């Protein structure tokens, strides 16, 4: 296990994934292929785990794993900016919001899964299987095909140009062709923030407010005058020994007057 062998293995994993099309053979380095399948497994596994959890926090954690898998797939699709945005907004923002709300609504479900009669369940499962198969068929037929000439030629198999998926590319789109959706999204987000605050606002009326003081009552409070004999036992120096305090009692009048004067 020499250093060069390890470095060769690691650089093979991190190799720039360039396809070599020689005739009919498309060869692709092993590292990115393994990472691709691992990310797909993470994404799909995380999604299935999410919907089967009874514990809501477990479901949120599985969802975060799904989002990380999806972000990895975005990065493999040359969508670097969107991979970062996916982690920041989805895993880092929306899921944190879900965790807050789950903490607030801390209720266990009595019957978490919908249970219906066997016929309805069979029909439902059949419908879902049909949805999955049909959707998969449609998308497979619409995607690039390695052996079909028409599908392969319409799409561009070579890697995209260097500014694909960057922030600059996104900006050049958003500030020219898609300026209106960009501004509209800003307004939508403001509306969403205001709406969330209004909807989740507490409906209990406040007991008092500092602005509710009636007229003329603000400066009516008088300072409290403590009676003279209550000031006798108070010592301004807390660590005085009782003997010294007893000696101070002889000068009680002078000290009381001094303490009283300091009380204002």
């Amino acid at each position: 296990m020499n250093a060069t062998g390890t470095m060769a293995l690691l650089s093979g994993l991190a190799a720039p994934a360039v396809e070599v099309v020689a005739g009919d053979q498309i060869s692709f380095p092993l590292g990115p292929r393994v990472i691709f399948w691992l990310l797909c497994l993470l994404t799909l596994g995380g999604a299935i785990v999410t919907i089967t959890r009874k514990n809501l926090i477990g479901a949120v954690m599985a969802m975060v794993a799904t989002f990380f898998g999806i972000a990895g797939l975005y990065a493999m699709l040359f969508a670097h900016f969107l991979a970062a945005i996916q982690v920041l907004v989805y895993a880092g923002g929306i899921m944190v919001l879900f965790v807050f709300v789950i903490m607030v609504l801390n209720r266990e479900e009595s019957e978490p899964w919908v249970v219906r009669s066997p016929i309805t369940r069979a029909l439902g499962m059949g419908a879902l299987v049909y949805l999955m198969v049909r959707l998969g068929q449609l998308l497979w037929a619409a995607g690039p095909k390695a052996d079909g000439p028409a599908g392969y030629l319409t799409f561009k198999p070579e890697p995209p140009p260097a500014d694909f998926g960057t922030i600059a590319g996104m900006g050049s789109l958003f500030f020219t062709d898609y300026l209106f959706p960009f501004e509209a999204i800003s307004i939508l987000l403001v509306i969403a923030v205001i709406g969330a605050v209004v909807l989740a606002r507490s409906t209990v009326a406040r007991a008092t407010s500092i602005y509710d003081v009636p007229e003329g009552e603000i400066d009516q409070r008088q300072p409290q005058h403590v009676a003279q004999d209550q000031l006798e036992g108070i010592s301004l120096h807390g660590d005085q020994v009782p003997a010294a305090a007893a000696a101070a009692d002889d000068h009680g009048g002078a000290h009381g007057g001094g303490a009283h004067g300091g009380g204002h």
Partner: protein
Amino acid sequence: MVPFHYLNYLLLLGALLFTVGVIGVIWRRNALLALMSIELMLNAANLTLLTFARAHHDMRGHALAFLVIAVAAAEAAIGLAIVVGVFRNRRSTNLDDLNLMKY
């Protein structure tokens, strides 16, 4: 960096994620899990958008996916506020308990 002939598998993954999201919305009674499944469906659509953007070298798929992410964030915030409000009135996050408009 995905092998070009694997883009089909990415589209298939998008379809499967969408179906898992549909199952989550229909099957689970908790309102929060239903919202999470809706986010899953939106992510599946985003994955499909970005796959086709890679295939066509067109960044407009990225722009649309970015807008979808922003809309999903806004919708999640409002949906969670609604769930909190409903919980305050009915003390339950069970979707079967929201049956006032039932026949």
